[in-house]
């Protein structure tokens, strides 16, 4: 599904001003937003989710228009059907894992039996069954991440946004979780846009790479299926060049 984003927003705090002027089209289902901190990546995701209102522009997923300032369209986050995995996961600390996962399900009468089954299925799928009655504070980073992912995916969102989903994990865990993310995307066929600082994420997760710089999109690269895995040499080189421009030495956080 195509994701088109073309937005402008000016943020002011005290004497500082930040101008976001972002325009890109993600042709494939796996997009990675890459760039240094403070380049407007998170703000852009918040705009797509409806948590922040752009001053002007247009956002669409496939045929659905989420925001269009010219037409006066601005869907509320509740109406967008866009899943969001926050950097700190934003799990509800007073609810159990099970209640967190079930939070976004329909609570209408008659739906209840159906949702109980769905929650069970998702807990199993994300290997969270033994933790169903635990509270988030007792979970490890990787487990929290799976709860956040299950909670977002159980609603079958049209698009999944992830704000640095791997940055809170230790490096050993990262490659495993990266693989899990990739598998989940294949399984649910949900288009996703992932913010990252880590070139390894780009290689593992991206079909589109959207490079941010100073509130603007510096470059959009489209990698062929499997290319990031080491196939197409020309594309690999292009990607490596772009990444090394951003992180001359010792790329990373």
């Amino acid at each position: 599904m195509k994701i088109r984003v073309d937005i402008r927003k000016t943020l002011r705090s005290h004497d500082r001003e930040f101008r976001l002027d972002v325009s890109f089209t993600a042709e494939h289902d796996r997009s990675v937003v890459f760039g240094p901190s403070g380049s407007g990546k998170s703000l852009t995701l918040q705009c797509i989710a409806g948590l922040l209102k752009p001053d002007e522009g247009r956002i669409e997923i496939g045929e659905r228009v989420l925001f269009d300032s010219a037409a006066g369209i601005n869907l509320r986050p509740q109406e967008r059907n866009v899943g969001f995995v926050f950097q700190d996961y934003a799990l509800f600390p007073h609810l159990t894992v099970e209640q967190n996962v079930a939070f976004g399900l329909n609570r209408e009468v008659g739906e209840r039996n159906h949702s109980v089954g769905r929650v069970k299925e998702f807990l199993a799928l994300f290997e969270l069954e033994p933790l169903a009655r635990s509270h988030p504070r007792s979970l490890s980073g990787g487990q929290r991440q799976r709860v956040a992912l299950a909670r977002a995916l159980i609603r079958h969102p049209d698009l999944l946004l992830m704000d640095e989903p791997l940055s809170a994990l230790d490096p050993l865990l990262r490659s495993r979780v990266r693989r899990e993310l990739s598998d989940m995307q294949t399984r649910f066929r949900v288009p996703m846009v992932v913010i990252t600082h880590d070139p390894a994420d780009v290689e593992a997760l991206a079909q589109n790479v959207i490079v941010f710089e100073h509130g603007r999109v510096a470059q959009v690269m489209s990698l062929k299926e499997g290319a990031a895995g080491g196939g197409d040499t020309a594309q690999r080189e292009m990607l490596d060049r772009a990444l090394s421009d951003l992180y001359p030495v010792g790329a990373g956080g």
Partner: protein
Amino acid sequence: MLGQAVVPLALTLKVAGFATLLALLTGGLFGFLLARHSFWGRDVLDAICTLPMVMPPTVLGYYLIVIIGRRGWIGGWLHEIGIDLIFTWQGAVLASAVVAFPLVFKGARAAFESVDSHLENAARTLGSSELRIFFRVTLPLAWRGILAGTMLAFARAMGEFGATLMVAGNIPGKTQTLSLAVYDAVQAGQDDLANFLVLITSIVCVLILVASGKLFRPAY
């Protein structure tokens, strides 16, 4: 002596209870409003809401007389429909509520502000209505802070003296609360009664402070 203490004690609990309820509803509302919405004049409104904490209770009592007295702005209108608040226990409730209000307000504002807005945003992306977010996310995470402020407010309302005296007077059996009864007992030289009343007041207040101290500790 016990008999002499029971009447003012019962009245005190009644007045403080209703005053706390009133302070909880209004203080909670204003605390939420100021924590979650920014608007022009917010700082001024915050200052006004905090004012009863620092102003002499007699000044507050005077304000209340000006507003709800028989010739007051609202009191005149209330008098016409047959409601008089001056020299009634309901007047004492109002006076105590005004004095206790900032404690609920401050506690509620801090409690609502301490709820991570990411959690509310996460609930929005999960399709929850604003009302459901308030009752399922915001309030469950803020209630301990609100309750702690409310208990302080109750303790404050129990000890209210100045504003209550101005608005409701000191009528035994009608508007004479514990603190007023202590004053009367000391004036009349009834030291035993004064000691007893002081002891009761102190015990109740210590219990409340211990309980609210426990609630102030974060749960998560």
